[in-house]
């Protein structure tokens, strides 16, 4: 009879576009898969997606629309931290749980996130540098978005434990046309590698700039769509490394529960989207699977019941890791699933 409505406020345009489109396609894939099996507890699901242009004001508008016009039962919203934060109080008031891929809003009573802690991406890169290279000085290049700032802070804090020194921290903006000065500064400070934190075409710009400067520094970037990385690899070759989530290196990832979980997602995903990057989409998938689990656990579609049961989820195997939630912890992933990867001759592989 009645469908269970999942609302997505996503930055289908604007700076988060790549990420949020993938996220929302992932959510849709999960919903289709569940519906094919008859839905959750016999109730079908339906997705409502609204574009928030990666802008918090729009985000508020579309959240409002989905709350009052579409009467959604659950939000599986995208990765724009600011927009999610802006809408969080209003969503909480409407008693609708939200599962996100951004950092958690200040008042997170109703919000859960599929995003691993900011440190994970940093630690993997430090590990790699420590174990596989003799580079001990790095520069950190980051954009001013909240998630990037968090990572930057972690990098500065934990570097020493890896025997690494952060010799230079430089910012950039998403629409910068040139990063050479920042890179030159890092090089002048003695950095042997650049840790870039942030999304979008600027990774390509950084790579071009490194080449134009004739710089020997390695480039290690944070998670991003593989489609962006391919041209970067063409420019920098084996000087280019990136943090990859397990789904991005599925073929070469060691067998186990995680690989199985990813496989379940990849099957319908690839059927529909071919070799499009699965990373952010797999989080979207996770969000729905988490919700399904919580609903089934509580045998209730009630917002507050879903919320309470989400808090009780432990050991849930998702596509990016295993989720352990609690009343205090709405960020469920607690073991680092990432690897450092490279693209060599057009093929993604785990860096050696």
């Amino acid at each position: 009879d009645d469908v269970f409505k999942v609302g997505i406020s996503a930055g289908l345009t604007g700076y988060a576009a790549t990420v949020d489109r993938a996220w929302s396609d992932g959510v849709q894939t999960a919903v289709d898969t569940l519906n094919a099996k008859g839905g959750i507890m016999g109730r079908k699901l339906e997705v409502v997606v609204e574009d928030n242009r990666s802008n918090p004001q729009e985000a508020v508008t579309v959240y409002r629309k989905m709350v009052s016009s579409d009467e959604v039962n659950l939000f599986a919203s995208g990765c724009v931290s600011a927009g999610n934060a802006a809408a969080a109080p209003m969503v909480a008031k409407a008693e609708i749980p939200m599962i996100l891929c951004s950092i958690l809003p200040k008042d997170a009573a109703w919000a859960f996130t599929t995003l691993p802690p900011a440190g994970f991406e940093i630690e993997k890169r430090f590990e790699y540098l420590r174990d596989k290279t003799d580079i001990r000085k790095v520069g950190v290049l980051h954009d001013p978005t909240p998630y990037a700032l968090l990572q930057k802070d972690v990098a500065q804090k934990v570097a020493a434990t890896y025997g690494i020194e952060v010799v230079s921290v430089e910012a950039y903006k998403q629409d910068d046309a040139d990063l050479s000065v920042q890179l030159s500064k890092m090089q002048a400070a003695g950095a042997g590698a650049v840790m870039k934190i942030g999304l979008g075409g600027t990774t390509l710009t950084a790579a071009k700039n490194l080449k134009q400067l004739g710089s020997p520094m390695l480039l290690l970037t944070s998670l991003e769509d593989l489609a962006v990385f391919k041209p970067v690899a063409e420019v920098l070759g084996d000087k280019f490394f990136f943090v990859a989530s397990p789904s991005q290196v599925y073929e070469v990832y060691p067998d186990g529960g995680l690989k199985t979980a990813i496989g379940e997602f990849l099957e319908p995903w690839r059927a529909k989207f071919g070799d499009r990057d699965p990373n952010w989409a797999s989080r979207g998938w996770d969000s729905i699977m988490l919700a399904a689990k919580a609903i089934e656990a509580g045998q209730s579609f009630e917002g507050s019941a879903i919320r309470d049961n989400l808090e009780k989820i432990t050991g849930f195997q998702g596509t990016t890791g295993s989720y352990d939630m609690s009343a205090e912890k709405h960020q469920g992933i607690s073991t680092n699933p990432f690897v450092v990867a490279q693209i060599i001759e057009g093929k993604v592989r785990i860096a050696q």
Partner: protein
Amino acid sequence: MQTTRLPLATAAVWAVSAAIVGYALIFGGYAATIISFALIYAVFVSGLNVFMGLTAQVSFGQSAFAAIGGYSSAVLTTTYAWPPLAGMSAGLVFSLLAAWAIGFPTLRLKGHYLAMATLAIGLITYEIAVEWESVTQGYLGISGIPPLGIGPFEAVSDRQILVVLSVVVLVIAFAVKRIQHSRLGRSFAAVAGSEEAAATLGINVARTKLVSFLLAAGLASISGSLFVHVVGYVSPEVFGLHMVILAFSMVYIGGLGTVAGPLIGALIVSILPEVFRGMKDSQDLAYGIALILILIYAPKGIAGVAGAFDARRAA
């Protein structure tokens, strides 16, 4: 009596606006959100209209004052627990001071140079909002801002907010109407017509422009404060270039230099995207095309066309 004939078309513009707001009042919910934003924009655009419409100057940087107002409200009410009205007033004072300091050198510029200088001011303010993290919390923004209210009375429901905003917009429209037909308004019009001629009639051109700029900045500041209290949240993107472009569309589509223009312009430009929302990826495309068509077919704006129609009827 010949002279007091009802300006029919202009009245119609007001009636349509009232109907739209009334609809939102009755049905509440999502419509109320959109119309609330539209009314807040109407306040902002009214200021722009004073500066651009009545005084024929141009500013691409009014978002700066909205940001000052908005952030003052946000920071003072959250970090320092001031009441909303006090935060708003402080924001107004800061905005006026900033506008005064900036206005002196800037308003000597003309045309594209004035456009550029004001654009620069808007962009600089935006950058400061992003970079001054210790106060503004950067892109993450400030949440938990209390709703509008005086003492124990708070406008929290959609309808209460709509009523408050409608009253604000009406008061401002009435004020603009009075200014337009006053000595001050005529000196604005004189500066708009010919600065050289205005000066020879004893009008202090620099001061007149500054007054107009301050009015615009004040209204921008108020709109910024209203926004953060209504939404409960603020971040730099609210006051980005996007805001300027939107406000420009509103002021021209509504009708530059008219009293009803800012309101009807804000309503139309806010509703337009909703009309195209179902078009998904083509939404912006449709919006852009609609904007171009409106500009071509109503270059004087809705209220401008109505005014011309009335003038014709009266003649």
